[in-house]
Structure formats: structure tokens, C-alpha cells
């Protein structure tokens, strides 16, 4: 099959990408706004590649089925939306500790609680700072286009297997439902080789393998942690991705991820039409976060404004990155509300005219 250009919904494009990557299994449970992933795969996957699709009895079951299937060395994926992702956190901690590669997708909706089925970005902390227990990290990609919903499935699986670690694609309900043109990659074959670390049964030439995450001896468990941390340092050194749009000459920079980064680009255009030089800095990997890259941008601008669909979560990382060099303002919408470019521009102007903090004095 050749590369193909198609008009697709974000959720469907992501599901299609899993098939094209040669993913072996998907386990999921219906939840709005991402049930199309399960439905699309149920329709398409088995007949095309023989991929296993299973509707589990809950998200807790899904993530544990992922743990089991991925533990055999196969390419395995699950997806859910915010409340369902909360249920998976225990499993994610074990998967990270057990060093099992897999791809997880969170099509975020507004929370907390049952919240709303409208889009949100309030699971940033959960994904980036460790929603489960213990010192683990979850590599987190934040697509901002339907095309990236496809690309990050590929990149996500590659990275998951390269580092033997779970990877999260953190998107939202709007991108999941949005239709855009996508260039689909060619179909890749399913995996046939065994992984030495997989629990796939003992053959004469292979030692048996047990997957576990327990050690009662603290010195052993500390070594284990050190190994994980070493891996995370290596990911931080090599896998950071970001996009700096019109930041070179910018006086002010909007920092945003995912869908909001696109809205910010529009806001930046409006600002430039008004003679204010605004750029957009978009972290693509939320973990590892582009701290140094953003810190460099801080040298040449007057101030930042972080825009998120939450009460200010990435804001904390932006502040860490900027490290006091310049002021960092914030504009957020919650509960499923999406900020418009005009809102963002208005907020930026407001902050320019009425600086809140002392540092913002530089704005005037």
C-alpha cells in the first residue's frame, strides 16, 4: 500500500495509524469522546492485519491487558478519556517499573470528576508528573493536528521500544472529533521477532523470563530506580521536541500545547496585525519538557503568556524553564471551554496594559 491522503477525524486517524504501524493488540473501554478509536479498530483492524481488538470490562482491565500483552513483547495500545485514564494510573506505574513498552492515548475532556465531554487539558499533571505512584516518567506527546495524531503513534511506538517505556499521546476531545487532511504512511508488517525481555515462554535457546516490579530489599530497589532514572535522563537528553513559531523577533511569546497552540498562532497573527510582535512556543513532548530551549527564548523576549485549557498546569513548567528571567502570565479556560484567538489576544493586551506582577513592569 502506498502513502495515502485522506480526510479523517482525529480519533479515526489515530486508530488507522495503529493498524498501519503494525500494532498487534488494542484493549479499550467505551468512553466519550474517544469511543471511535475502539469502534474504528473493531471494524478495520482484524480483517486487515489480524490485530487483536478487545472491549474490556473496564479501563482497569484494559490497562492490565496491555500490561500482559505488551509484556510478551508485542506492540500494544490502549486509549481512553480523562476519567478512564485515572483508572489506569495504577497499571501505568507497574508498566513503567516493569519497563514494558506500549502506547497509551488520552483524549482529554474537562474534569475533575465526571466533568464534561467537551475538550480539556487538565490531565497535564497526571500525565507529565506521574499520575500513579512512585518515581516514574511517562513520555508524553501532544499532537496539535490530526496529522500528528497519526505521526505520534509511529514515533510513540518507536520510542517506547527504543527505551522500553510506556508512551502517552495526550490529546483532547476537539482534536479527536476534528476532521482534517492526513497523509497516511505505508502499511508496516506486524511484529514477528521475540523480545529477549518478553515473557513469551521458554524455548531451548532462551532463559525463562518473569516480569515483576517488586523487591523487598531496599538496596536492590534503589538500584532499580537508578536504572529507571538513568533511562529518563537519556530520554531528556535525546527526545525533546518543540516548535518555536515566529519567536526570533517576538517581544511576547505565547506558550501552549496541542490544539491551544494552534489557536495561539491565530492570536499571534491578530497581535501582529495590531503591531505587537508575538510568537508561539509549542512543547511537543510535554515530558521531556523543553526547559532549556524555552529558557533561551526568554533572553530575547519581554514576557510570556501560557495558555491552557486548565487552571494552569504546564504554567509551572514554563515558570521553571523561564526561571525568573521574564514574567510569565497565564490565561486558562476550564470545564470544556475552548479559548478563541480573540480571547487570547484580548487577554494578552489586558496583561500588557495592566501588569499584575512587578516583573510584568517590563511589559509596559
Amino acid at each position, binding site marked *: 500500500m502506498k502513502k495515502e491522503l485522506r480526510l479523517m477525524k482525529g480519533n479515526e486517524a489515530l486508530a488507522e495509524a495503529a493498524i498501519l504501524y503494525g500494532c498487534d493488540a488494542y484493549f479499550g*473501554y*467505551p*468512553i*466519550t469522546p474517544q*469511543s471511535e478509536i*475502539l*469502534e474504528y479498530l*473493531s*471494524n478495520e483492524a*482484524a480483517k486487515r492485519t489480524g490485530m487483536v481488538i478487545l*472491549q474490556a*470490562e*473496564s*479501563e*482497569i482491565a484494559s490497562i492490565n491487558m496491555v500490561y500482559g500483552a505488551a509484556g510478551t513483547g508485542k506492540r500494544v495500545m490502549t486509549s481512553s478519556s480523562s*476519567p478512564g485514564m485515572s483508572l489506569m494510573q495504577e497499571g501505568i506505574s507497574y508498566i513503567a517499573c516493569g519497563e514494558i513498552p506500549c502506547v497509551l492515548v488520552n483524549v482529554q475532556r474537562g474534569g475533575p470528576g*465526571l466533568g464534561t465531554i467537551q475538550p480539556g487539558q487538565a490531565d497535564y499533571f497526571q500525565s507529565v508528573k506521574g499520575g500513579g505512584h512512585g518515581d516514574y516518567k511517562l513520555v508524553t506527546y501532544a499532537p496539535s493536528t490530526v496529522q500528528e495524531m497519526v505521526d505520534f503513534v509511529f514515533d510513540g511506538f518507536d520510542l517506547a521500544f527504543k527505551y522500553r517505556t510506556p508512551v502517552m499521546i495526550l490529546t483532547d476531545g476537539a482534536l479527536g472529533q476534528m476532521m482534517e487532511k492526513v497523509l497516511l504512511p505505508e502499511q508496516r508488517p506486524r511484529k514477528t521477532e521475540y523480545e529477549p525481555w518478553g515473557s513469551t515462554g521458554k524455548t531451548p535457546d532462551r532463559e525463562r523470563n518473569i516480569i515483576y516490579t517488586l523487591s523487598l530489599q531496599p538496596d536492590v530497589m534503589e538500584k532499580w530506580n537508578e536504572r529507571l532514572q538513568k533511562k529518563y535522563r537519556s530520554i531528556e537528553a535525546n527526545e525533546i521536541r518543540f516548535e518555536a513559531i515566529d519567536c526570533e523577533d517576538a517581544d511576547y511569546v505565547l506558550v501552549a500545547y496541542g490544539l491551544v497552540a494552534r489557536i495561539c498562532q491565530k492570536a499571534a497573527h491578530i497581535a501582529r496585525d495590531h503591531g505587537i510582535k508575538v510568537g508561539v512556543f509549542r512543547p511537543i513532548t510535554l515530558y521531556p519538557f523543553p526547559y532549556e530551549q524555552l529558557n533561551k527564548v526568554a533572553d530575547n523576549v519581554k514576557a510570556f503568556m501560557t495558555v491552557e485549557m486548565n487552571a494552569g498546569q504546564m504554567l509551572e513548567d514554563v515558570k521553571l524553564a523561564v526561571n525568573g528571567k521574564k514574567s510569565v502570565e497565564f490565561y486558562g479556560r476550564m470545564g470544556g471551554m475552548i479559548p478563541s484567538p480573540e480571547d487570547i489576544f484580548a487577554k494578552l493586551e489586558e496583561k500588557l496594559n495592566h501588569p499584575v506582577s512587578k516583573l510584568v513592569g517590563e511589559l509596559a
Partner: protein
Amino acid sequence: MANNINTVETEVKYTAKDFSSGIDVKWCPGCGDYSILAQVQRSSPDFGAKKEDIVWVSGIGCSSRFPYYMNTYGFHGIHGRAAAIATGVKLANPKLQVWVATGDGDMLSIGGNHFIHACRKNIDLKIVMFNNRIYGLTKGQYSPTSEKGKVTKSSPYGTVDWPFNAIKLATGSGATFVARSMDRDPKHLQEILSRAAKHKGVTFIEVLQNCPIFNDGAFFNLTEKETRADNVVYLEHAKPLVFGEKQNKGIKLDGLNPIIIDLEDGKHSVNDCLVHDETDDNPTRIFLMARFTDIPGYPTPVGVFRNYSKQTYDGDYVQQIEGLKQKMGVGTYDALMFSENTWEVK
């Protein structure tokens, strides 16, 4: 007893209207949930509790919108967790009459664990499970009661799962009141609800409910006039299992095998039929009847399968505390502070 919920300490006579919250009901037109709501509201005056002593707890799903529509206290909870939340409510305030509105997905899929444990504990909860054999709220995926081979949005080539038989599950887990009714049999449903209200211990009612949008007609052979008589056997305590248009068929036991007999063939009579005993503490016969729905050609039993009495978790728990208080006296703060394992910080 001041706290006895079975004594309505007020002269006020409720009507169905008193139990309607008046909020706009947001189910699809024609949904069977409307009838269930109406029957609950109509029978609520018979529940033997004041409005303010009734709590409806739900999980997530179409059925779980129920608490919004009842003019009682309510709890729109977490997917699958209604039984656990209701357990908390009941233990925190045992005088409340606690009802659970849930669905086949909510209670049997994600909530299966909490469900069986509520049944095992025999805690005084009244669980009403709307079974439409589909996930309605997420728009039409198969549920744990969908029949094997069911084609849905998430099973375009048919499911390979075996469904749960909810009556068997509840009985096997220890529920002490187990019943089945139907959205389209309002009188029957009202009667079952009123009986459930009076039971002490876990009450489980499976209500067969039509979802006209995603699983229309799933139970029409049971609920519609033309087919009902041949496909439904109404269970009544101490009555033989007889069904059919002219009450001409019966069920008899051959050892442990149920057999359908023709009461007009000259060889069989109603005296041969299995006589239902809902108070039997041996669940074997209940299982036999629950299994009818798993055997092609057998009528679906509707009514109370089981209604027997055994100590309840909440009852025993409260009693245990009272017993300890009597034995050891009511604790005081000082007694606790200066009991064992205290030390002085110098």
C-alpha cells in the same frame, strides 16, 4: 423504634407527584427508562420511608441519570461504583433507605466487583438494574448482557463473549431478594418495587428495558401482548410454574432438569409442575429457573426468584457497636488519649 424507616412518622400521604423532581428528563424519546421512573415514582409512597430518608445512588450510564429525576436525596456517582458508594451511605446513616439505579454496563461490567461484594455482605441496599443489553450513553457498544454474536459498533463481526445471567450472578453472590421485571409491565414492576422496599438485605431487581435507539426490541418477545404468554413464566410464591396463552404449558423437574410439559396432552397436569418457593434458602431451584433464559425455547421467568431473610451487614455492624458499647462503656476522648501506647515528649 424512633429510627425505624418502616414507620412513616408523618400523617402526610404521598402521591407519585411528590417523588418527581420536576427536572427535564433527558432520555431519548421512547426510552424504557421513562416507564421505570414512572413506576418508581408511583410505588414510592408505599416504600415505607419519608422522602427525606430515601437516597437514590447511581453510577454512570443512561440509567444513572435517575437520581436527578427523583425528589429524594441523590448521588450521581462514579462509573461502576454505585454499590460501593451506596454501601458508604448506608453505613454512615443506617436509617436511610438506600436505592441504587444502575445499568447492565455500570453494574455488571466495570462495577461487577462491587456488585458481588454488596450481595455477599447482604447490606440493606435496593439495587434496580436497568438491563438494555447495550451501552447506550456511549452510543451503542455491546454490554456484558449482550447475547453472544451480537453485532454492535464495537463488535461489527459479532461478539465472542458469553453474557452474564444477572439473576444467577446475584443469587450466587448471596443477594437475599432477587427479582426480574420489565419496563413494559408497569403493574408488575410497581409490585416488585414495593416488595423490594420492604425487604431487609440486598435486593436486586433486574428490569428488562428497551433502548429504542441502540437495541430496539431486545425484549419485545417478552413484553408484547402477542408473544408474552408463550415466552414469559410469571413466578409466584407457592404457585406452580405455568405459562402459555391458555395457561396450557408447565415446567416440571426431572431430577435437576427442567422440562416443558403440555398440560393438555392428557398425560400431564398442573400437579406435575414445579412449585415456586421464593423463601427456599437452598438456591438450587433458583439457579434452575434462572437458567431458563440460557436454554433456547424456555420461557423467561419474571417475578421474585428469591426472597429470604438472613442477617444484614449493616444490622450486624450496628449491633456489634452497640454490644461493644454495653460491654466496654462509651469511649471518651481522655480514655482514648491515655490508653496504651502513650508517651511523654520531653
